[in-house]
């Protein structure tokens, strides 16, 4: 990263090669289509590039990267919400739009919907902990909060999922 700050093209190439796959995986946490994920990745890299001077060698790199990725995702989410609020419903969905989200097995699809129904802050913590494999401290850095707050959000998410799964099982009986 320091070589990148000194404008070393090889360092830039190495960073793009190594950091993009975990970022794509993180952007996939919101069940975005491949095109959406790639757009988010490009936007995120432009932001990383513009704010590369704010990285300090004494701080861990990945929370810095994920903090920028998080804002990229939030901005895209807000933009999508704004566009959706202006959309006019049409009678039929244009062909080709059905295939954007990968199909999951039935049971997992239900669980995916349960996770999607969690509040954004809780879902985000789950994605960072489980999908991106970050530690509690890294999530706290990336979300500009404390380890205690991250633990609390994760706990609430677990409680909500546990309750929902319990209800599902009772319905199944």
């Amino acid at each position: 990263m320091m070589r990148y700050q000194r404008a070393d093209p090889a360092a830039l190439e190495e960073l793009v090669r190594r950091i993009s796959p975990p970022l794509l995986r993180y952007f996939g946490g919101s069940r975005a289509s491949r095109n959406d994920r790639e757009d988010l990745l490009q936007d995120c890299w432009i932001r990383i590039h513009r704010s590369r001077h704010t990285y300090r060698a004494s701080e861990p790199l990945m929370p810095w990267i994920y903090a920028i990725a998080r804002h990229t995702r939030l901005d895209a989410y807000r933009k999508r919400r704004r566009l959706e609020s202006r959309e006019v419903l049409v009678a039929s969905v244009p062909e080709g739009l059905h295939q954007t989200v990968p199909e999951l097995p039935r049971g997992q699809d239900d669980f995916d919907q349960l996770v999607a129904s969690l509040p954004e802050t809780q879902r985000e913590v789950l994605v960072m902990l489980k999908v991106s494999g970050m530690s509690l401290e890294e999530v706290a850095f990336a979300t500009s909060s404390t380890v205690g707050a991250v633990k609390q959000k994760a706990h609430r998410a677990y409680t909500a999922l546990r309750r929902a799964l319990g209800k599902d099982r009772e319905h199944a009986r």
Partner: protein
Amino acid sequence: MQDNPRDAHLERQLEVWAASHPDTGLSPALRQKVHGVLASSLTPVKPLPSQSRLILAFLAVFVACAAGLIAVMDKAGFHLMTGAQMGWMAAILAGGGVLFSISLAGQMVPGSRRALPFSVVLVLSGVAVIAGIALLFPWRASSDFISEGRPCAVMELMIAIPAAAIFWLLARRGALVASAGLGAALTGLTAFLALTPLQTQCMFQQAPHLLVWHGATAAILIGLGALIGDCLGRFGPRLR
């Protein structure tokens, strides 16, 4: 967590859910595209100074501006306050300046360690100002409450607006991602800066006057800062 069969089931579901997220590698075309865009504007950059140096820079501006304004403005309030009132108010206003400086410096760097959440900074500084004024100053209000107070509010705004521009010049080098919080932190710092010379200048050292015309104006400034920051974050230019 695994002791409970329901938790074990949840853990299994979460593992499957995490594994279901696509882990496709980066396509060479996309890598080339990203690299091409960034390489065209790749120039050496100077990293931001350390967090402590940023905080010191904000505090230096805060102290220099406050001292300069106290020196040039009328000192009626200074002569009216008791030693205890002066000491406590100086400590509260300086403490607010320190807290907002720490918060502002923290918001300039994405993913930086936050010693204190911004909400805590806001509550602590607000409670300190309200409690300080309510306990230290007499509860009397004159009949000309509005006409006496309006010039104080106008003066506070006249100090705060250029001060906000100065702090913005210092803060704009950061990657300003949390816009509502950043706006509130910036105007919070300027509000505390404006309150300092106003406290020594004002000749109406009574709790109702100080709470409404000094304190409430500061609260409105902070709210406006948060609102402007949020609007810029939503509709304005994206992260620098």
